[in-house]
């Protein structure tokens, strides 16, 4: 069997498919789902479809680069995977390593392994008493995917010996999953499905800005950690104790609070109320500038960049009572040179005037229009902005404690990219295409070794500090783990003091 690299161009989109260059790296074509499977129901999972991701960066364009292979994965687990970070987070205990944490040892891990190419097995209800046990298991099994489940009343690995009903989820981070595939109807960058590009990545940026603010300001959650899913989406893990102990009902309520349903052909009842709820007002204030800079112009998603688009996707959606605006502007814009942003302002102004809020004398229409129609029109520009920008949540992921979600720090087998932490304050600078692939990480390690031999630098504590992962993992440590541990210490101290005070009473 020939072992040469078979570099494949995907004829449909002209982009580089993940290439196989060694006999062991037959991943792309064997990653098909094996449906004969096992005790798991797929509904528990955040499913990734098997579509290639459009890749645009320099690194990926080096067509010969291998981004993922079982060999590379093995090396990643052996040298780079941040077991200590994962453990010290999931243990929720600042006194790391030697102390046993039930929060860690009763956590469900599930692993997807490929014992032979093409065969895929999910193993559920794994749990590990120590970081060392976890490390050993991962090094041995080399899972292509690791999912994190809930923290149970008992160690999940004992599930077979436990009586029915004894294994109950007792804690779980509140999680959110946002995926670009849910934006297909408003993506006009050419991407569909699993493809992404920098133009549509702004939807993720907007989602982080809206949700992060809401979670912190409204719900008072302080320990929110964001991750790139490795492919086309982002995950949020809210780790405050109050969040971890929420009931399913409460999770549902929080997720629904962040969900905006807009009027559609099937549902004319708009859920927006005026004045806008403060959380929606805040979202609107964040989103409208994005809408103007990234949705309207041709350099973005082009909503106001061509007569076809503005007619079909904007003017035609004006409620019946405002149809006069549509025909007026359609004519006006047919041959003028205003920018998309100016067109948007014009449009809003026309709506305001029509419903009698434009200042000056009220028009005849404004006087005769029904309150309902006025409200409908007043909503409309907000709805437009929300339709094209508001975060689209997969709320089923958030609703129950039991839902499995891909573990941070895994590698997406399709892209080879690491599921890295994202700092919400720096979301605007985050570039998914700059996230290292396994192939690149190995090169970085080699480069480091070469220069280190010459320069005699002090040896870093972790191997990942020798690579670009450092730029993702260290801020996670500093901005997320440290404050989390600080709060746990404070909480423990308070409890100890309380207990001491109680004893003093007797």
């Amino acid at each position, binding site marked *: 069997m020939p072992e040469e690299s078979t570099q494949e161009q995907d004829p449909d989109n002209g982009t580089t498919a993940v290439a196989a260059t060694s006999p062991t790296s037959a991943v792309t074509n064997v990653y098909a789902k094996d449906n004969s499977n096992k005790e798991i*129901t797929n*509904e528990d999972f955040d499913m990734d479809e098997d579509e290639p991701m459009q890749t645009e960066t320099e690194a990926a364009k080096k067509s010969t680069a291998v981004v993922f292979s079982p060999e590379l994965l093995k090396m990643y687990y052996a040298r780079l995977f941040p077991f200590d970070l994962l453990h010290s987070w999931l243990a929720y205990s600042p006194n790391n390593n030697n102390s046993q944490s039930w929060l860690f040892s009763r956590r469900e891990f599930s692993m997807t392994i490929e014992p032979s190419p093409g065969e895929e097995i999910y193993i559920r209800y794994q749990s590990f008493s120590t970081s060392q046990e976890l490390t050993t298991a991962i090094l041995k099994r080399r899972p292509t995917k690791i999912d994190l489940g809930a923290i149970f009343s008992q160690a999940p690995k004992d599930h077979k010996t436990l009586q029915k009903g004894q294994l109950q989820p007792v804690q779980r981070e509140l999680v959110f999953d946002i995926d670009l595939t849910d934006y297909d109807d408003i993506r006009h960058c050419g991407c569909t499905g699993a493809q992404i590009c920098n133009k549509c990545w702004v939807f993720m940026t907007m989602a982080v800005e809206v949700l992060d603010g809401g979670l912190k300001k409204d*719900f008072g959650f302080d320990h929110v950690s964001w991750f790139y899913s490795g492919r086309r989406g982002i995950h949020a893990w809210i780790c405050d104790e109050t969040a971890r102990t929420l009931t399913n009902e409460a999770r549902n309520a929080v997720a629904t609070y962040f969900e905006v349903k807009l009027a559609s052909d099937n549902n004319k009842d708009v859920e927006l109320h005026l004045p806008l709820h403060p959380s929606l007002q805040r979202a609107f204030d964040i989103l409208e500038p994005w809408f103007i800079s990234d949705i309207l112009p041709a350099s973005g998603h082009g909503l106001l960049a061509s007569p076809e688009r503005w007619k079909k996707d904007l003017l035609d959606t004006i409620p019946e009572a405002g149809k006069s605006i549509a025909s007026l502007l359609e004519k006006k814009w047919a041959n003028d040179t205003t920018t998309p942003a100016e067109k948007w302002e014009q449009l809003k102004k026309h709506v305001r005037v029509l419903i009698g809020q434009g200042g000056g004398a009220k028009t005849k229409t404004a006087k005769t229009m029904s309150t309902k129609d006025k409200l409908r029109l007043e909503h409309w520009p907000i709805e437009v902005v929300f339709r094209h920008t508001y975060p689209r949540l997969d709320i089923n992921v958030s609703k129950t404690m039991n839902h499995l979600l891909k573990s941070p720090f895994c590698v997406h087998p399709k892209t080879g990219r690491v599921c890295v932490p994202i700092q919400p304050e720096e979301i605007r600078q985050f570039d998914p295409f700059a996230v290292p692939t396994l192939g690149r990480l190995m090169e970085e390690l080699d480069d480091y070794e070469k220069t280190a031999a010459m320069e005699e630098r002090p040896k870093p504590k972790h191997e990942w500090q020798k690579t670009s992962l450092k730029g993702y993992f260290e801020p996670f440590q500093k901005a997320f783990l440290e404050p989390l541990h600080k709060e746990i210490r404070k909480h423990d101290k308070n409890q100890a003091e309380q207990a001491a005070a109680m004893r003093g009473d007797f």
Partner: protein
Amino acid sequence: MNVVGPIKPSSSLIAGIPEEESSSKNAAFKQIQLYDEAPQVEMSLDQFEVYALKRLKVLRKLERVMNSRTANSIDGKNALKKTISEELETPELDQISHFILRAAYSLDEEKRRWFLTHETALFRFRLEQADQKVLTKSCKMFQLTPLHPKEAQEKMQLLKMLLPHDNNTRSSNQTFYKVPFTQALDLVAKRQCIVERGFAYIPASKVVSILAGKFRMLLSASLAHLAQNGILGGSNSSEAERLHPLLQNINSCLLETEPISEELGSFQASMVTPGNVPKLVQHMPLCMRTMQTGLQKDKKLRYHGRLQYGLFLKGAGLSLEDALVFFQRSFSNMTAEQWQKEYSYSIRHTYGKEGQKKSKSAYNCSGIINSQPPSHPGDHHGCPYKEYDSDKLSKLLQSLKIGSTPGDRQAIVNLQKSKHYNLACLEHFKVMHPNQEALKDISVDNIGNHPNAWFRASLAYKEYETGGAGAENNEKEGALVAGSPKAVADVAMSSA
């Protein structure tokens, strides 16, 4: 006697108005109880049962009204109000009957959940009907105090938007409440409160929701406690022995004796009730049996499944009202609101009450075989003989203990392998119903062509076997056999 286990003690339990007023017709709405202290009364066992049934009548009425189109209509509310006033006529009866049912229903999980949902709905309904005075007292019961005027003043800009437009002018004297957001979940979900740093700010007009939530939490905790510690909480064991069978009896009769739908008088219709559908699976062909299993497992059925199974149950005599009750109970992972909003429509649709308003009839086998194949792990519809491979089918038959020998199962699998789905289904029937004498007397028409025929025949067979009140019905069925065209069933039967 003391019917209940230990319950968290609390101070004042009954928010009410002075004695003289509570004797009026609507006493049930003037005194709203938390039921956090068990009554200590002597009563006869007869009375005990009467009380239980009175409250049950109220809760069942509530369940039906909640599930009907008239849920929010004045008529629906008035009817409900009337039942409540009539049945729970005194505060004592209200309290005692609550505790009897609480004890009886604590015996099994599904019933605990049913009781919790409907007692909470009852509590909520009474609060909604109550006047301001009662409401204020109820807030006090739950230690819910209005937001401090100073804080209210500071937040007025924000809070004002919670009030209806026409109320804006009076907003400065409005009362607001501040609670952890977890106590106001449905208001949070609908963004009908302000949420700030984990606290929900709520206008007085929405406080009912909070109180109902708190009530639910208390009741849920005490039900869990009862379930763990037993009804009598370790008290006098001879009393326990005496009471236990009685409670068991109430517990079982409560869900089983469903009122029979008026328009369906046949013996089968009377058998198909929300409570006994799960028990009737052994009379269902494999497609419907797997549907019920799937429904129980997922606590949900997806669109095609709802349609296929819903129409089958309808054909089997389940009324719309009962279907709503049955499916809502089965979809037990969701809140009443969610059910109402997302699913009850589709059940009504099945009965022709929504959408095109055409009453659909149950799918026959070719409809099922040719329907859109299941494509999702949560899909349980379709014909299992067609959708399953023979391995999976064999395992399923074995796990359901179908047939007395492996040969029985093999016969079914063989027919399936040669793609004779209808005959495989018929073979299943034959294996399950081996008494040739009985088969002579019932209609085996259309088995293998229509799941409802299978079901009907299986029930008729059981009637024959148990020699019950079947004589008259058998005659009717017999007449049907004679008059109807021979279908695949008959041919295969005689060749067997």
